[in-house]
């Protein structure tokens, strides 16, 4: 393991921003720090960079303590959310900056710096822009220049703060694939911060989900998607429907729900909460079922509907519109559950989705 973070804590005044972060990042890995705003992910990134310092805990790289080193000594590449390019320098001078500030003894010659910059410009596919100023570039181009400037010093670790946050959707998707390609061919250990789960999942080898200054879950994207470890992660990843169920012999039971597809769980008997994605709920017309469709809305591709039972249970489901014949308001339906996550304990209504997870719930249907 090259980067080891242990028991890291940081508070700003009365607010504990980081509360005991444990994380190891291997050489050449691409890791995403994912979480809502205020989860402490940017603070963690800044501490790794040497732009901020923890109140307690350890940070080491390849066995050397990094907390005793300045940002410059750590030789990290940091890409700021708004790029922080030097406006009075051309693209070429921006990228060369890290090489030109080296002590005279280590500084490469002019020709060598120029060759390095040329190589990076080609590698990042911005060779036509070398004499432009940052103000003359588009957002995506600035992002590439910022990355080039960070990579010029051959950083041990590349750190990116919301790398695509300031770009529009199309550029975002293109750059994401491009960045993955850059990482795969450069092989630099990379950590990036994002609040967009689609971005984190598509790009990263491993995703670290953070909330309230603690790590909620670390894992491969598919693993986190299929098996969220905590109610927070479940909600954050779009399992926004919460249904009270009763556990009996490892199986969940609830009136009107067909839960046969869910695997057996090693949970004690008693009340539990089932977390569901609206798309993992299939309403089946059934005159004897306790649920009744009370609202429908269409997005063209999807039909969103609300099913309510007499007991007051309200469930939102999402089905492909063309397969949704017969699901009109008033129709009694049974609900077949394709996949879901169960956490022990009841009272789901108290644990309504947080505001932070709301804008993200449709990021991955």
């Amino acid at each position, binding site marked *: 393991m090259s980067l080891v973070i242990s028991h890291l804590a940081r508070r700003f005044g009365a607010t504990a921003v980081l509360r005991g972060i444990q994380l190891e990042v291997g050489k050449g890995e691409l890791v995403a720090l994912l979480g809502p705003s205020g989860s402490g992910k940017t603070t963690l990134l800044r501490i790794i960079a040497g732009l901020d310092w923890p109140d307690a805990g350890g940070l080491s790289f390849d066995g050397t303590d990094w907390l005793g080193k300045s*940002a410059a000594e750590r030789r990290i*590449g*940091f890409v700021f959310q708004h790029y*922080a390019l*030097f406006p009075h320098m051309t693209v070429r001078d921006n990228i060369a*900056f890290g090489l030109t*500030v*080296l002590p005279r003894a280590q500084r490469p010659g002019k020709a060598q710096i120029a060759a390095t910059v040329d190589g990076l410009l080609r590698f990042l596919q911005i060779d036509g822009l070398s004499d432009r100023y940052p103000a003359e570039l588009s957002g995506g181009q600035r992002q590439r220049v910022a990355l080039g400037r960070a990579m010029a010093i051959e950083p041990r670790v590349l750190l990116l703060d919301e790398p695509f946050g300031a770009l529009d959707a199309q550029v975002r998707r293109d750059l994401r694939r491009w960045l993955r390609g850059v990482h795969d061919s450069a092989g630099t250990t990379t950590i990036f911060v994002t609040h967009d789960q689609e971005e984190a999942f598509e790009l990263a080898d491993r995703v670290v989900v953070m909330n309230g200054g603690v790590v909620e879950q670390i894992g491969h994207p598919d693993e986190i998607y299929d098996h969220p470890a905590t109610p927070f992660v479940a909600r954050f990843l779009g399992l926004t429907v919460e249904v009270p169920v009763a556990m009996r012999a490892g199986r969940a039971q609830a009136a009107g729900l067909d839960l046969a597809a869910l695997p057996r769980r090693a949970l004690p008997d008693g009340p539990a909460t089932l977390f569901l994605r609206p798309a993992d709920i299939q309403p089946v017309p059934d005159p004897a079922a306790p649920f009744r469709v009370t609202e429908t809305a269409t997005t063209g591709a999807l039909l969103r509907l609300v099913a309510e039972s007499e007991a007051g249970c309200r469930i939102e489901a999402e089905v492909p519109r063309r397969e949704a014949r017969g699901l009109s308001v008033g129709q009694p339906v049974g609900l077949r559950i394709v996949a879901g996550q169960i956490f022990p304990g009841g009272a789901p209504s108290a644990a309504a989705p947080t505001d932070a997870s709301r804008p993200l719930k449709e990021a991955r249907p």
Partner: protein
Amino acid sequence: MTPAIAPAALAPRQDRRAQWLLIGLAVALTLFIVVVPLVYIFWRALSEGFAVFAQNIMAPDTLHAIWLTSVVAVITLPVNLAIGIAAAWLIARFTFPGRKALLTLIELPFSISPIIAGVCYLLLYGRQGLLGPVLAAGDVKILFALPGIILVTLFVTSPFVAREVLPLMQAQGSEQEQAALTLGASGWQIFRRVTLPNIRWALLYGAVLATARAVGEFGAVSVVSGAIRGQTNTLPLQIELLFNDLNIVGAFAAASTLTLIALVVLVLKTVLEGRTR
């Protein structure tokens, strides 16, 4: 101001008289308050011909006043730049107890009448002042000499640079400096290659304003300089002196020099304003 786009033909007809009345009033006020006095200075200075004008400018006392004013300006400028940058950097980049108080302190000279500054220096450094005996013992002469003039001029002009640079530094934030830090730049390299280029126009603008004030300052300087002809008389003091001597052409000739400096500064300021905004 008339709108850039002519109103459509069917728009309701406006009464133009009020418009012209207001424009006329503004023009008349500008003429009598600004333009006429300015033109009059040059007209009076040259009223007895260029030879007399030149002779008055070349009078030893006036020449010395011009020289003294230049010396004061040249010495105060770098000090003002250093103080202004340091203060702006401190306030924009750090939070510390007393930050607000420092901000107020920097702006204090703006709200204090210059004559009060002069009197304060008189009470502090004067023969009967607080530090008078110490200075006399060390044979250090501050009042009625160049050091005193420079000190009060610094007091009066110190806020200008910080006032121009600080808002810009606050607006730009410190991200570029942090980026330079992660790229391995030292403190001095960050300042010279990132901070300074970003604030250069505001810095120059502040320097122009401070210099204009340093050259034109009358009140504070008149208290501490003693107005010794050919020794501690700056240009503004010399003008007053000549005027009191009823040497009208001489006074206006000296005034025209000062006005010329002011006009050059004004042009510089306008050019720089376009660059900073």
